[in-house]
């Protein structure tokens, strides 16, 4: 007995010296945090002072609790250590309620009891009671556990948890997940957590982690974890998403992200479960952000799959007219995807009769109700609702004949906002009647003329035949048009390709070229490279073509004040004087515009006497500070030496340093002596060549030789991009016919994907049966680096349980601009789904900003600069923000696999036909409108 007591005293002394010291050091930060959260002394002094004793104030226990606590305190001095430890653990659970009695025992006669009470006091004060208990379960001291949690390498702790972990350690798990949330290890750690803690414990853990750590920029990772590994109870999912959103309040897109992520849980929980879970799991004693309950309800509605009217009735939701915009938007979407058209109509009627703003309800109703039904009541709707209806139909065009007729009538509406929306909507219904209406409206209504002209621009080529008198009037009125409208009007006249219109514009611009019309003027000038102004403009336009940019946009962006001065000068002089000026610039090695001048001379075929000198300068034979830039001129020139320069580069093969200029020349349509096929045979003749020119794959023709195609694919799967494949490249590989699995694994009998990118390539682009075999055999790595990819890839191939496959694939493809979304939509388009093809072209076409989730059109959520998050509903007019002609990303060759008549530059061509696309049973076609 005496010996036992001696050992105990010795141990206690050691622990007293070491443990608290370590503990205090490790928790210094936590102590500071506690003090700074409202317990600073009134004087404000003592930042470095010890923590206040009552950081956690004592709470009076019930008499029964007090008796038990006293009993446990006595057990702290029990002869058996296990008993002492158990008592200590149980006391820690009482937290503040045990504090009073613990403090009285600090001077207990038994040193062991006094020391353990001192430790307990500190543990409770620092709010680490739960952590303390967990440490005991893991057979660690709290200092050791804290050291593990603070360590850069969380591996040892995960090993301890794997071997000794038991349920009830959510605090530890929350900290572990918080530590690894920025790493792939998050997934394997979470999986281990779920194994040990069970579904409920895992759910609690994620909620805690979201609360404590999401604000550190890891919110998106936690959202991904939730989607890939949903908690067992809907309450935990809702609560976690809500907390992530509020923890990352500074991230303006987080609200949209969590609402979008919520859609990935459809099918995980039944509608009844999510309705019941709509209150989430608020944490006691944690202040609730404003609007938290609304967000939880909105998340629940987003998470619900299609439901029945009975399920909705039993949910006890507030009436629609009393819902906030955030909740209402989710509610309406739920009604729409549940096919509850009657409920939508009733909601709309209730809101209208209640005098509530019904724009959201009107938009949702218009998305499901027959067009004719909506048109029948359109006039009786308030204007906000009318705009919402038009906006819905703009995003999801239907029944073109009916809608087109209706929009034509609206284009004369006396209400400017409605008229503007209708004019903008008409932009996607190319027809002679549309052109006439847009033109008439532009002339009759100055306040909405801009909308009409912007809508008219992509179909301006119809003007000369559809409305020749209107076109003539436009030319006449051009000079007197207000400054704000002139550039748009000029671009229409240029796009009309009408000789009279061109002459009228040239006459104007020769007199005076305004700087805000410079870009569009250069488009017109560039058509005639025999003139100095034309050659100068075409040279700049060629650079845009080489950059795969839309000519109008490029010129608008890149034309500089020096171009303005130059063109004004060139327009004021005769041709020879103008070319003499360009020649002088081309020979001035110090002039910043020298390359453009050289290209201009080439375009005008005035470089015959110059190319020999350019070649010497390019090769270094004649020193030239801009030697490398002369390649632009050599790529443009049609002289025999320049052609020979390009042919030689091609003959030298992919290792030629000049092959890049052949590519540029080809891109600028200045290389008739070499065909695209010929070029790509050389560029991609070896894997090395394909790698060196991997940036050029977008120009590869659809019928590129099989070897070249394989080399291009190899270059990307093993190149600098680490195998990352975006939507456009993914579609190209998918169509190329290359056996991706053969590229990745050859004939290996034991193929193993190297990393996540190869796993995804295997699943998405490989032959399904072999890919399934490979990915079934692939092991998940302990460091988690392939965990998420493997799960998604298996879902894509249908290797997970059926509902999970569908859910994850749907979640992954929600973004049409991802390779998942693009490939899934491409498959649907192959089967004749016009909506799927429209979505591909929306995302990879000229104005993707309009269609991005949370973007400018439709219902979007945005953080206000000041105040709480708000819902935005942008009308068609607002969707016109991105009226600039942009570049298309989908190669025309790929588009022609679906629509044979698509031109190379298909941006404007598509804009004015978007609403007319349909599947005629054999091919995609466009509705013909008169």
């Amino acid at each position, binding site marked *: 007995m005496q010996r036992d007591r001696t050992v105990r005293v010795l141990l206690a002394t050691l622990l007293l010296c070491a443990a608290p010291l370590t503990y205090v050091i490790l928790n210094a930060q936590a102590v500071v945090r506690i003090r700074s959260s409202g317990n600073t002394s009134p004087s404000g002094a003592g930042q470095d002072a010890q923590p206040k004793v009552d950081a956690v104030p004592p709470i009076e226990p019930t008499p029964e609790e007090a008796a038990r606590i006293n009993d446990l305190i006595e057990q702290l001095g029990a002869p058996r250590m296990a008993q002492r430890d158990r008592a200590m653990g149980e006391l820690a659970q009482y937290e503040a309620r045990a504090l009073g009695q613990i403090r009285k025992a600090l001077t207990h006669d038994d040193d062991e009891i006094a020391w353990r009470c001192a430790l307990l006091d500190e543990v409770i004060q620092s709010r680490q009671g739960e952590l303390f208990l967990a440490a005991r379960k893991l057979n660690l001291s709290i200092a050791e556990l804290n050291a593990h949690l603070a360590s850069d390498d969380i591996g040892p702790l995960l090993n301890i948890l794997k071997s000794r972990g038991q349920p009830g350690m959510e605090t530890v798990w929350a900290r572990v997940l918080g530590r690894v949330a920025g790493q792939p290890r998050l997934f394997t750690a979470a999986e281990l957590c779920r194994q040990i803690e069970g579904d409920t414990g895992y759910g609690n853990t994620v909620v805690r982690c979201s609360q404590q750590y999401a604000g550190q920029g890891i919110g998106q990772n936690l959202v991904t974890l939730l989607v890939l590994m949903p908690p067992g109870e809907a309450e935990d999912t809702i609560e976690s998403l809500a907390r992530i959103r509020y923890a990352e309040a500074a991230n303006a897109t987080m609200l949209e992200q969590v609402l979008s992520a919520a859609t990935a849980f459809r099918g995980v929980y039944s509608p009844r479960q999510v309705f019941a879970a709509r209150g989430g799991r608020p944490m006691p004693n944690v202040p609730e952000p404003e609007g938290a309950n609304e967000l939880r309800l909105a998340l629940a509605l987003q998470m619900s799959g299609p439901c029945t009217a009975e399920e909705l009735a039993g949910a006890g939701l507030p009436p629609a007219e009393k819902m906030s915009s955030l909740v209402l938007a989710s509610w309406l979407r739920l009604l729409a995807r549940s096919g509850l058209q009657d409920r939508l109509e009733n909601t709309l009627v209730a809101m209208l009769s209640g005098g509530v703003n019904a724009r959201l309800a009107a938009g949702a109703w218009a998305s499901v109700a027959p067009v004719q039904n909506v048109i029948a009541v359109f006039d009786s709707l308030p204007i906000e609702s009318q705009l919402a209806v038009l906006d819905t139909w703009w995003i999801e065009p239907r029944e073109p004949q009916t809608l087109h007729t209706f929009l034509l009538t609206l284009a004369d509406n006396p209400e400017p*906002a409605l008229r503007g929306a209708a004019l903008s909507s008409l932009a996607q219904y190319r027809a002679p009647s549309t052109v006439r209406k847009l033109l008439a409206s532009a002339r009759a209504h*100055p*306040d909405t*003329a*801009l909308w009409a002209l912007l809508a008219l621009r992509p179909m301006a080529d119809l003007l000369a035949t559809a409305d020749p008198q209107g076109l003539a009037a436009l030319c006449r009125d051009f000079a007197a048009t*207000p*400054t*704000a*409208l002139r*550039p748009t009007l000029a671009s229409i006249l240029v796009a009309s390709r009408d000789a009279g219109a061109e002459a009228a514009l040239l006459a104007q611009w020769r007199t*005076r070229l*305004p*700087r*805000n*019309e*410079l870009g569009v003027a250069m488009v017109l000038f560039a058509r005639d490279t025999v003139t100095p102004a034309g050659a100068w403009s075409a040279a700049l336009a060629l650079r*845009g073509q*080489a*950059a*795969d*940019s839309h000519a109008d*946009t*490029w010129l*608008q*962006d*890149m034309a500089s*004040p*020096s171009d303005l*001065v130059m063109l004004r000068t060139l327009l004021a002089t005769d041709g020879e004087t103008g070319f003499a000026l360009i020649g002088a610039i081309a020979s001035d090695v110090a002039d910043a515009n020298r390359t453009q001048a050289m290209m201009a001379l080439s375009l005008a075929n005035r470089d015959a006497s110059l190319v020999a000198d350019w070649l010497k300068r390019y090769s270094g034979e004649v020193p030239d500070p801009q030697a490398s830039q002369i390649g632009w001129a050599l790529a443009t020139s049609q002289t025999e030496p320049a052609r020979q320069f390009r042919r030689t580069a091609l003959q030298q093969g992919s290792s030629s340093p000049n092959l890049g200029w052949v590519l540029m020349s080809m891109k600028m349509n200045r290389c008739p002596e070499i065909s695209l096929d010929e070029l790509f045979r050389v560029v991609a003749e070896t894997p090395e060549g394909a790698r060196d020119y991997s*940036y050029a794959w*977008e120009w590869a023709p659809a019928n590129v030789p099989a070897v070249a195609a394989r080399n291009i694919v190899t270059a990307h799967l093993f190149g600098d991009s680490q195998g990352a494949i975006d939507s456009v490249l993914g579609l190209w590989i998918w169509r190329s016919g290359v056996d991706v699995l053969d590229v990745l694994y050859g004939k290996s009998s034991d193929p193993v994907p190297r990393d996540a990118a190869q796993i995804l390539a295997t699943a998405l682009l490989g032959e399904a049966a072999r890919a399934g075999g490979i990915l079934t055999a692939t092991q998940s790595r302990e460091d988690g680096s392939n965990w998420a990819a493997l799960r998604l890839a298996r879902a894509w191939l249908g290797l997970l349980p059926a509902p999970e496959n569908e859910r994850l694939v749907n979640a992954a493809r929600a973004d049409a601009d991802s390779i998942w979304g693009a490939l899934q939509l491409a498959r649907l388009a192959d089967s004749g789904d016009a909506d799927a093809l429209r979505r591909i072209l929306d995302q990879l076409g000229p104005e*993707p*900003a309009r269609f991005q989730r949370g973007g*400018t059109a439709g219902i979007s959520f945005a953080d*206000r*600069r*000041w*105040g709480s998050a708000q819902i*935005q509903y*942008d*009308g068609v*007019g*607002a969707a016109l*923000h*991105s*009226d*600039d002609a*942009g*570049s298309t990303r989908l190669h025309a060759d790929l588009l022609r696999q679906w629509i044979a008549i698509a031109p190379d530059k298909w941006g404007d061509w598509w804009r004015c036909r978007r609403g007319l696309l349909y599947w005629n049973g054999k091919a995609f076609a466009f509705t013909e409108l008169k």
Partner: protein
Amino acid sequence: MAKTSRDSGPRPAALIVAREPWLPPEGGQELATALREDVGELLGSLRLRIEPAPNATAADIVRIFQREKRPLLLAFSDVPALPALSVEGALEELVENAVVVGPCADGAVYLLGMAPGLDDDIVGQLAEAACGPAHDALGAVTDAVDVEDLPVVLLPPWTRIGSDKDLSFAENLARLSLMSEDGEEDFLADRLRLWFERHAT
């Protein structure tokens, strides 16, 4: 390959507020037209979308701001040779700040920028200030933005044509610009310059 330098976001909007300049006895209306068109041309060349509302009232400005949900610049039709740098600077500042003010020495403002998300009340006050008497505009704007935590940025001062001296100043600017090495690149108010040439004394 490199794409264009411009991002795919919406173009900022601009509205030219009609404000009568001081007009000389001869060619006054021509001067007003030249000034207005120069401002429009500059804003257009900087790729701003100009709202076609030549006689916008304060209420119109508020309505346009609410509709656009993107940065809105208010320019004024009595400002000669509005510096492109000020416009570009204002757009840059509106990414981080709520309001950008371009002050004139006579108590007017020559540019007023508002960021999306600005409270409607403040927008209303700013619009009233912009459409009210020119000499009171800066004071009214200052009162409107005197709100705690509202980030406001001041642009370098510029001038407007509020008197014959201002017009003389603008004429000298044009002449100096033509004499400079870069010539008319520095002074892009072509219509105003042409007016000076026609009305040379």
